[in-house]
């Protein structure tokens, strides 16, 4: 048996570098984050407010989003899960709560972490507020918010069926 007979797999690292654009329609949103403000956008067609303004487009109407709208900072949890599985690139300590949060004034929920309470205390309808990192760590990203924490306000029933956006 030659040495070659033992070669069954080949490790081939592949590295490709891209320039990623957030696009001009994300500018006000990202500038807002640099400033500690949560800026969403309103669709000129259906008037719904998107935060974050994904791709700057309303997916229902296929229209570029229009006016900037400041939303939050508080919001309501619409659904959540408790993450207990490690994964490549993970930075957060297990277990942690990943939640969909409907910020006041927005019409679509956004995803973030819930901390400063027991995972078992988190519930649909819970009111939360953002906890920002130190300003020196800020960049154009939602990561400027370290996590959301309960405000202590009474839970809100939004009249939206559980599991809808």
């Amino acid at each position: 048996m030659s040495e070659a007979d033992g070669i069954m797999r080949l490790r081939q690292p592949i590295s490709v570098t891209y320039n990623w654009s957030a696009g001009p329609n994300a500018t006000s949103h990202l500038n807002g984050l640099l400033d500690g403000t949560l800026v969403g956008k309103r669709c000129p067609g259906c008037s719904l407010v998107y935060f974050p303004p994904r791709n700057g487009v309303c997916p229902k109407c296929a229209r570029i989003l229009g006016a900037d709208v400041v939303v939050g900072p508080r919001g309501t949890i619409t659904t959540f899960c408790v993450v207990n599985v490690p994964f490549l690139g993970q930075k957060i300590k297990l277990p942690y709560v990943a939640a969909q949060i409907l910020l006041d004034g927005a019409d679509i929920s956004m995803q973030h972490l819930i901390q400063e309470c027991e995972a078992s205390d988190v519930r649909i309808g819970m009111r939360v507020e953002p906890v920002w990192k130190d300003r020196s760590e800020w960049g154009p990203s939602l990561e400027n918010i370290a996590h959301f924490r309960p405000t202590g306000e009474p839970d809100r029933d939004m009249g939206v069926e559980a599991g809808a956006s």
Partner: protein
Amino acid sequence: MADLCAVVGVGQTKHASCRADVSIAGLVREAVDRALADANIGIDDVDAIVIGKAPDPLEGVAMPELWLADALAAHGKPVFRVHTAGSVGGSTAIVAAQHVMAGIHGTVLTVGFEKQSDGNAMWALSVPIPFGMPVHAGAGGYFSPIVRGYIKRSGAPSHIGAMVAVKDRTNACKNPYAHLHEPDWTLEKALESPMMWDPIRFVETCPSSDGAMALVIMSEERADKHAGPKAWVHATAMRSEPTAFAGREQVSPRAGEMCAEDLWRKGGITNPAKEVDVAEIYVPFAWFEPMWLENLGFAPRNEGWRWVEDGVTDIGGSLPINPSGGVMSTNPIGASGMLRFGEAAMQVMGKAGEHQIDGARKAVGHAYGGGSQFFAMWLVSSSKP
């Protein structure tokens, strides 16, 4: 206007977490060779090849169908590549069938595959987007809040997911090709399985698999002359909707409902639960079984979980779901949809071996992908419509 077509051959690989014994081409040919043998034709009898798979970063080969042209003896033939995320195995089978239905080709080979052990599937499924907030851990982290939404609105008891998991893993033991062969699951053991993304337990999640599935589809003219059982394609349907928009119904997406409605209408089905003998539906997380039972129009809203509890979806039940073990037991992403479509065909061809549902005449294959936004289905039968 469209011709009738039929599946005349089915072949799949032995699915496993790592098929280090074959190259990508070898994996594909294992399924293809079995399908050709099952159809009793040679590779030169194939007029065209339609290939589907999920994102190429899963293996690190861009547009691998180009390189695979040699392995598939495709010189001088058309090769076509479909990519519709998780539903791709299903949509690929539909595109292949449509080449025959349109009268363009008489014999089409279609294959779905994924050799995801070659790369890092978790990374490929959660590549962080700049300027965003990386929070969820893979597909489970995306879907578990939606599952939570279903449990809340339906009032389902918390053991339903575990019941589906036990059923699917036990079914898989009757399927020699399935990835997971775990014969000793009980409900008690399953309820002790650790929570991964609460409310989804480890046992309720699909594995990551290497595997491939291939089908040979023939025109009515050729299929009529072909000895052996056939799965006539009565209807196909596809629907898509955006990933996220304000007010989007996430638990039972409208695109899934409409896809099923279209399928039933085209297939002349007025009472799906009664008229369909068996269904292979795309359940990557156990709770999706009751959710899809409702979404596809089998069970009434908020009642899907009762059907699970009552054993309706067991192999011995009145609507067996995933007798093959389903995505819960085997999940090569690019192949999974075609596994559902192919297993449905196998049922009406009487070729499902130990997991054959007796007397299965009409079967449904279903696949979904993305953020529960891409849906593909087909209805097959042992007789012509």
